[in-house]
């Protein structure tokens, strides 16, 4: 039995080494004084300093953040409104809408990116910031809908009627009853779509054109050109950001869990 546990433990450890070794190497070599991806030449913060004065990276970081924030906000808004409406559709129509919603999720990113590029070309929209934003909104909405819809389904549909019954106009009933009830889903949708937008490379690659590039595209072109430890520094920072974000989300959901468990008392 002891042996079994050792084998199991070491198997999981090996998997984690496999998962984290590349990340660890990236981070360690972001402090490497030598401009090499494998030879250690002493500790330096040079690459971080260069990173923060690299205009190309900073501008693409700005693009990434703006696109992520805007697309997450727009997608979440559209998804919230849509989910509230979806509940009232007949089963058949809802099924049609939901199938359309699944299409971008099921489609390979490659095809989604290409098809959106063709759409923009067809509409004679010059590829740039606007098309990049539209594309991100387009692939974010389905994920936002899938985050909010379960909350909407849990919602007792009589709550809306109860609000009307007590004298609330439909807009007041949405603001005072439906929104507070589905808020957790809306927040999840915001965080998820923001992360997806930051993480996306493939769809951005096809829809941003030559004039605008976000972080992913900049990294891609840098990585193909030559060894550049600034990428390592950037990776380390992004890893840290993701780590913090995930811990926050996780903490939040654990806290919510605790709240319902202990019972809420004021």
């Amino acid at each position, binding site marked *: 039995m002891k042996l079994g546990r050792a084998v199991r433990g070491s198997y999981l450890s090996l998997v984690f080494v496999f998962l984290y070794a590349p990340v660890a190497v990236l981070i360690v070599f972001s402090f490497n004084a030598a401009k090499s991806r494998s030879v250690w030449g002493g500790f330096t913060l040079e690459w971080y300093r260069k990173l923060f004065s690299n205009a190309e990276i900073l501008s693409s970081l700005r693009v990434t953040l703006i696109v992520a924030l805007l697309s997450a906000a727009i997608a979440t808004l559209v998804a919230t409104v849509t989910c509230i409406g979806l509940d009232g559709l007949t089963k058949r129509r809802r099924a049609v809408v939901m199938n359309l919603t699944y299409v971008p999720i099921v489609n390979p990113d490659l095809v989604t990116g290409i098809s959106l590029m063709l759409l923009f070309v067809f509409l004679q929209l010059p590829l740039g910031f606007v098309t990049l934003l539209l594309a991100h909104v387009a692939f974010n909405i389905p994920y936002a809908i899938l985050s909010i819809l379960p909350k909407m389904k849990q919602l007792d549909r*009589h*709550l809306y*009627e*109860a609000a*009307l019954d*007590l*004298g609330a106009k439909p807009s007041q009933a949405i603001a005072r009853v439906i929104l507070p*009830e589905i808020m957790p889903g809306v927040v999840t949708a915001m965080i998820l779509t923001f992360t997806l937008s930051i993480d996306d490379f493939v769809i951005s690659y096809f829809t941003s054109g030559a004039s605008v590039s976000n972080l992913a595209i900049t990294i891609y072109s840098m990585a193909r050109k030559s060894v550049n430890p600034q990428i390592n520094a950037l990776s380390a920072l992004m890893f840290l950001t993701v780590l913090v974000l995930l811990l926050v989300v996780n903490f939040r959901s654990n806290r919510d869990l605790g709240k319902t468990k202990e019972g*809420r008392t004021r």
Partner: protein
Amino acid sequence: MAEGTRPILELVGVNKSYGDTQVLTDISFPIRSNEFITLLGPSGCGKTTTLRILAGFERPDSGDVLFEGASLLDVPPFKRRLNTVFQRYALFPHLDVFENVAFGLRLRKTPEAEVKARVAAALKTVDLDGYGKRWVDQLSGGQMQRVAIARAIVNGPEILLLDEPLGALDLKMRKEMQIELKDMQKRLGITFVYVTHDQEEALTMSDTVVVMREGVIQQVGSPTDVYNEPRNAFVADFIGESNILPARMEKDFEIAFAGHRFACVDRRRAEADVDVVVRPEDIVLAPPVEGGLNGVVTSVVFKGVHYEMIVECDGTEWMVHSTDQAAEGDRAALVFGPEDIHVMDRSPFSPDAHGILPADLAGRAARASADEGDPDR
């Protein structure tokens, strides 16, 4: 019964269907001021849909809803002067008890002091003093029920709609709440429109009962009316235990069923083929007599107050309630008086006539019920 008082609300020829399913057919009945009226029927009978039309959540396909004589159809729910107590309470989980009750008042921008006073009064009415700061998920079913009622009555509605409000409570709680609700209705002096599938609840609480089945009103009347004078076999069967048999009435005060002729208190009707209902508690078991309705006791179950016995006479099972116990296998005669025989019109719900009518009548009765019968059945 509140005869004579003015109708405050009236349904006129209301029809409603969802897709191909007709859920309400020609529903018309008045609701009088200050009465306790109950829509009673099995699930799927359209009682909840009727209530939702009154509340304004559904719009009838045709027909009208009149409030003090004026049509309500184009008045949205939030402008109607009636409030609803929902089946599963529909309390707002993100608000505490106080804010749930205050919801309607706040929408009307009521001054804070008045909100406090009226919410406190409403909570007092439902016996929930001091529960204002609780969250709704900390309440028991009965307490949630009370909050739902307080939330509705705090707005001073003229009519309160209640959709199976006691359905989720256990039996003991339900009995207590029945009395309390009835009491509250009298104290508040407002009209209650109550939906339930529980016939006992309906009889206990109501001034008027509307019996519905598959979207059609079967009978409107006081609890004693619908119990003692059910209009058809469905009502008789749904309201209370009953023995329902096809019968034939050739002349006034005489009726034939179960292979025998009996004296009765009714005159002959337009149709000779009728149904009769004899309530189990109206039947007395006596020693068998020649020419009487004799049978064999096949089952005896003690029900607490009385015994429920099944007596088989010529292939028909009769249910008899009595405080006197018989033994299984006993032979006995069923005895009941002319006033215990309630005569009803034939309807699609009439029992099968074969072997129960005197031989010469059976054929005709069967034909009659086949003609009237619902082709779906």
